[in-house]
């Protein structure tokens, strides 16, 4: 579990943050409509309209969460590729400890 930590001055923003904001807003409205639907149902009022609105929000929320998962996977693949590309670089390009004479090789 990720704890609370102070971000560094050069830290980049998580690209998923914008999607998270949208998910949060939709989730808020979904929760509001859930409460309204339950209250309408319990008090014997017509709850069909509220329930359908809730359904629309839940579907939208599910789509957004699926989109976020796909984004997470894409980012993970991109990170792995970048790390692999960095590993494949010749050592003299990275500044090898022997000054590029080739004594230290991986």
């Amino acid at each position, binding site marked *: 579990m990720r*704890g609370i930590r*102070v*971000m560094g*001055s050069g830290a980049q923003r998580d690209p998923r943050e914008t999607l*998270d904001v949208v998910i*949060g807003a*939709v989730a*808020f409205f979904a929760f509001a409509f859930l409460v309204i639907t339950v209250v309408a149902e319990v008090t014997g009022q017509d709850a069909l309209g509220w329930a359908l609105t809730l359904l629309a929000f839940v579907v939208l929320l599910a789509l957004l969460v699926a989109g976020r998962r796909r984004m997470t996977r894409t980012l993970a693949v991109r990170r792995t590729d970048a790390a692999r590309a960095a590993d494949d670089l010749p050592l003299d390009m990275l500044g090898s400890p022997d000054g590029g004479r080739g004594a230290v090789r991986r």
Partner: protein
Amino acid sequence: MSAIAGPAAATAEGRALRLERTGTANKVGKRRRRNQSIRTAISAIVIVVWCVAPFYWMIVTSFRDVGFTFDTTPWFTHFTWDNYVTALSTNLGNHLGRALLNSLIIGAVTTVICLLFGIFAAYALARLDFRFKGIVMGVILGASMFPGVALLTPLFQLFTSWGWIGTYQALILPDISFALPLTVYTLTSFFREMPWDLEEAARIDGCTPAQAFRKIILPLAAPAVFTTAILAFIASWNEYLIASQLTTDATQTVTVAIAGFTGSQPHQEPYTAVMAAGVVVTIPLVILVLIFQRRIVAGLTAGGVKG
């Protein structure tokens, strides 16, 4: 002769051509810049007229004799101060002075509380990395988009059962819930662009996190804080819907007081007196904005450019 003069003439010709091209380019550039300036000036004039025209009309009507309320002359005619006397008089049951004081108290308390919570929340959202940060911001955004009219009946029932109807807190609490998301969002976007190296330097120099925040971050954030304070105050000052239902005569705000205005003539809508009251109500906001003008401009432009 021609063999010797040929290259020299060609060089001179080329230079002349180059100069001509540069001159033409300069002329085109100047013309383009001038056209751009004219377009900008026209746009600015249109925007200013669009924004100022209703206020100008309000002032003109507020100084017009009640018998000429519907006169459409666009400048001052049939000048009188009577409308201001009517608006500020308590003989007709109007309590504009008291309403002004109520609005001032409610707006000031709302602004202070919003800033107190908003600054810390925005700092945390901009500076700290924690799980569900984006979702927290989304919920704040959702709360700010929630229609106020949907809260009216539940709030009325709740405050009636608490005995809060006609009290200041009955207006302050809903006003905070409307202004706080605005405060948090504005300050978060500002804090995101803040040079955090300064805070880190203060920490290296021996400041505690609280001292770095108080002595380095807060002074740097002052323009944004002032801008946000003004926006929160205006939001609270202009609130009508909740105030119209949850106040009594003693705690009426200006928007409610003006809506219930009575004029000097029976069976007549007191439009001119309402306009006069509108001018009186706008003056505190104008004064506030003028006092903090420099800081507000700095705050509005801050956070708009990266780097």
